[in-house]
């Protein structure tokens, strides 16, 4: 059924269709609507779940872990400071291999205090062992809510999954969204079954300590499981397209990149504007292209390098900066380029921090700088002295 929904509302609809058994979350702008909607669904009986009111994000994820350790499907959601507050638990959840799904509304981190969108919150947690996906629009948000459980709970993966929505730009913007039926969702997403649970008939020691001999083997296994998510993502998208008729493109979403000379790599909701500019530049005979990263973890190194191998220059536009170095997405991409032996010039453009607007003109200028080569390695959009920073 077609509905007019915000990104947050669409995500809540997706979670309703995924039928989690336990939801524990603490409201924080701009994620609040997800928690409000889910609590209303539990209240009116359209979602049969335990809704646990917690006093903090640390408790929210701890509760979700407890639920997952009892063998049921768990959900939580947060943003910004809330994500940072639950950071300790992120590593517990991934190390315990609890396939919890979390929605994170991408928002800047204090200080200065700010509630608007950038991606510094989730990108700071790339090493926490969670699968990380970035949605572009409300429909993809709903669809990722369903697909995330399929991928996270897959027996070969069993890894928690964070779905990121750009704060306000996506969480609060209304779009037409196709909401599938419960029957369709059921045929897509099997019930959660696991051996990784508290079981009276088969008592286990869970969530224990492990010394130097074995600890690193556990870490190796976390890494291997995350890499195994790559074929499972493809499997999920194939099954999803058969049932819902919408086809997703794996770890990246490449637009006119096949023959592109100048490729802009980005993630999240800004990608739509970048594609629009690409079309405009193509009319002027400039072979522009866009790659939208859908998954930051597992990182699509092979997919990106394959897509840019013919390019004359690439630029990475991200709402993040790792102070004293460069944008973290850029670091990841440069590592992939080096690994593939590509020596294409690569430029990093930092923008949108604290929700600052990234304009048409900003993106046109990024393509111009790619062509002229007159750009520093790291460039802060709109700040003169930020060039060649």
């Amino acid at each position, binding site marked *: 059924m077609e509905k007019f929904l915000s990104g947050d509302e669409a995500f809540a609809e997706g979670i309703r269709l995924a039928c989690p058994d336990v939801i524990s979350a603490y409201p924080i702008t701009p994620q609040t609507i997800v928690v409000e909607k889910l609590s209303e669904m539990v209240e009116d009986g359209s979602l049969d779940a335990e809704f646990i009111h917690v006093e903090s994000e640390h408790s929210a994820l701890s509760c979700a872990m407890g639920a997952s350790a009892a063998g049921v499907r768990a959900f939580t959601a947060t943003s910004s400071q809330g994500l940072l507050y639950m950071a300790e638990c992120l590593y517990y959840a991934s190390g315990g291999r609890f396939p919890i799904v979390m929605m994170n509304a991408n928002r800047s981190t204090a200080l200065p205090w700010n509630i608007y969108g950038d991606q510094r919150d989730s990108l700071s947690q790339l090493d926490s062992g969670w699968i990380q996906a970035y949605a572009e629009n409300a429909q993809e948000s709903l669809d990722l809510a369903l697909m995330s459980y399929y991928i996270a709970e897959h027996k070969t993966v069993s890894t928690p999954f964070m779905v990121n929505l750009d704060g306000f730009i996506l969480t609060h913007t209304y779009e037409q969204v196709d909401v599938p039926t419960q029957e369709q969702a059921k045929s897509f997403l099997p019930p959660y079954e696991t*051996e990784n649970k508290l079981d009276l008939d088969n008592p286990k020691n869970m969530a224990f300590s492990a010394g130097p001999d074995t600890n690193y083997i556990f870490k190796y296994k976390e890494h291997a499981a995350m890499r195994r998510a790559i074929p499972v993502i493809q499997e999920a998208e194939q099954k999803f397209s058969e049932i819902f008729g919408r086809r997703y493109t794996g770890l990246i979403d490449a637009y006119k990149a096949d023959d592109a000379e100048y490729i802009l790599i980005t993630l999240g909701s800004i990608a739509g504007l970048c594609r629009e500019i690409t079309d405009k530049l193509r009319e002027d005979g400039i072979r522009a292209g866009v790659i939208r990263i859908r998954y930051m973890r597992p990182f699509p190194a092979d997919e990106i390098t394959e897509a840019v191998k013919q390019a004359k220059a690439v630029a990475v536009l991200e709402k993040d900066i790792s102070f004293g170095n460069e944008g973290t997405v850029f670091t990841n991409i440069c590592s992939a380029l080096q690994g593939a032996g590509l020596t294409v010039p690569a430029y990093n453009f930092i923008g949108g921090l604290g929700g600052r607007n990234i304009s048409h003109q900003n993106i046109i200028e990024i393509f111009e700088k790619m062509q002229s080569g007159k750009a520093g390695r790291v460039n802060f959009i709109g700040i003169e002295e930020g060039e060649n920073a």
Partner: protein
Amino acid sequence: MIKPTVREKKVFGVADVPEDTSFEAGYLVSVNSGWRSIRPVVNTEKCVGCMQCYLYCPDGVISIQDNKAVIDYDFCKGCGICSKICKPGAIGMERER
């Protein structure tokens, strides 16, 4: 009374380590009592098998055998709680040599 026993320590390879952070409960491979300076000693004449020490022991090292408390010195840390809680005064604390 089910009590885990100390087993032979083996080297775990990648295939032996489980996927998730869980393992068979009570899998003990090494003793752990090195820092004990005093040890509880049960006077079986006085012990009435009331199980209070068994219930209070924070390390779960006390079992009741033939209606008498038995202490597992491989894991007892010597905290003395059993001695404190013992109403008949059957558990005394003796200095470790």
